[in-house]
């Protein structure tokens, strides 16, 4: 019944690395060509994991390219990290067919918190982005309904920022 995707039955540990390394090397070569200067850095961390760092402007283009051309059909996670001088959005994207996960880090300067929303590409990102907005205050342009998801609507503070101290009050 596995007609649609050309799923290859998983074999032992050894064969897995030869099978996969080809795909990652291809990624490492082709992505900088198609994205250009915005993709500041890309490296193969280990077999099955490629990490990249990309500027905020071209995240939409990179996402669409990854999903359509390279089969990264599943968005696992969007985490928002507060590095005190800047925010950073870490996208974890996974391709089932090629057993590969990609980690894309997108720095977001503190003064301009606008980022393009990838919900139009992966619908799974909808609630991840709402939670990033709710916890850190990063605004996603083009998001269907950007509201607070976990905290009540009338709350003003963004809890996961480093400057928000864990108050002891009631």
């Amino acid at each position, binding site marked *: 019944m596995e007609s649609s995707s050309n799923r290859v039955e998983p074999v032992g540990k050894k064969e897995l690395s030869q099978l996969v390394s080809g795909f990652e090397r291809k990624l490492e070569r082709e992505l900088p060509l198609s994205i250009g200067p915005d993709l500041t850095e890309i490296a193969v961390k280990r077999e099955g994991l490629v990490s990249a760092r990309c500027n905020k402007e071209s995240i939409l283009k990179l996402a669409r390219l990854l999903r359509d051309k390279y089969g990264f*059909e599943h968005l696992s996670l969007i985490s928002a990290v507060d590095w005190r001088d800047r925010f950073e959005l870490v996208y974890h994207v996974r391709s089932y067919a090629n057993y590969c996960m990609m980690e894309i880090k997108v720095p977001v300067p503190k003064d301009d918190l606008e980022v393009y929303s990838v919900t139009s590409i992966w619908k799974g990102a909808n609630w991840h982005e709402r939670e990033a907005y709710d916890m850190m205050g990063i605004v996603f342009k083009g998001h269907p309904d950007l509201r607070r*998801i976990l905290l009540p609507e009338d709350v003003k503070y963004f809890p996961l920022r480093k400057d928000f101290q864990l108050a002891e009050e009631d």
Partner: protein
Amino acid sequence: MAEMWINMGPQHPMTHGLWNLRIKVDGEVITDAMPEIGYLHRGMEKIFENKTYVQIGPLTDRLCYGSSFTWNHLYCMTVEKLMGLEIPERAKWIRVMAIELQRIASHLMWLAAYAADLGLLTGFVWAMRDREIFLDLLQALSGSRLTYNYARIGGVAADLPPDFERDCLRAVDYFERKLKEHENLYNGSKIFKMRTVGIGILKREEAINLGVTGPTLRGSNAKIDIRKDQPYEVYDEIDFEVACHTDCDCWARYIVRMTEMKESCKIIRQTLQKMPKGPVRVKTPMLAPSGDAIGVVEDPRGEGMMYLIGDGTDRPYRLKVRSPLFVTLSAAKSMLLGYKVADVVAIMGSIDVCMGETDR
């Protein structure tokens, strides 16, 4: 009848836990659905940043209380990856066995809640009765019924108690006989099929795009299981089948979970045979190096993931938790459209909601 917003929750027997499903109803058919969560938000990720690595262990049990060992183990595995720690072989086998025991207990909890939703009180009580056996086994291992804190950074808290293998094998044999009894109660009953076949259909492409994972995805004709795709611990040395069904509806998810329970029994038997002797724990340093690490685990509800950033101190700089239910709930709307109000129970029951991990 005019369009009407119906509010199901937060206190509602259908919701296993606290969340509010607002559905717009035209007569009896659902035209729009908007899940509302956050009633159990405890700000866990903020608390994580103020506790040391060892203190966070017991907290991760409370992430999803239905399958607390998988989250505890995921946290320890992620920290070990960050520290670059190699844990003893016996500890890995014990962890895999405990994960599968926890998977059966979690699926039985789902079966109990699902039967109670559809009005089959006998199913609730039988599933809870059989779940007690596995809770006793895990209690023998860790001392507590629900939140174990059994996995520690660098291995497992303690070795198996004396003649644990005998009890475990006896429990698994007993359970496989009892599983047939459960199946007669559900597969045989025409009414259960009337309530679940063809209800809550979620196609394969839409499920993957929405980020749905776990039994809900495997029920939609996708043979995707992290234990096979990205084997962690010793899953690549165990042969088991990935349960998959092609109907994409509540019935398929029910069948997937029942076969997964059978597979877990097989895995437990293999772990008990192949478990080597040796130490179960390694000394761990207090401070973790700076850098980041990802842990991905097949939770009974889907793909559980943790993204950990260490900054060289003994406290994590940032620990992000990816909860499978957080995403499956966002896909609830596409499962609900077009079905009747009475079907909401069957559909929401079939994705095994657990609010602990969704609200964090």
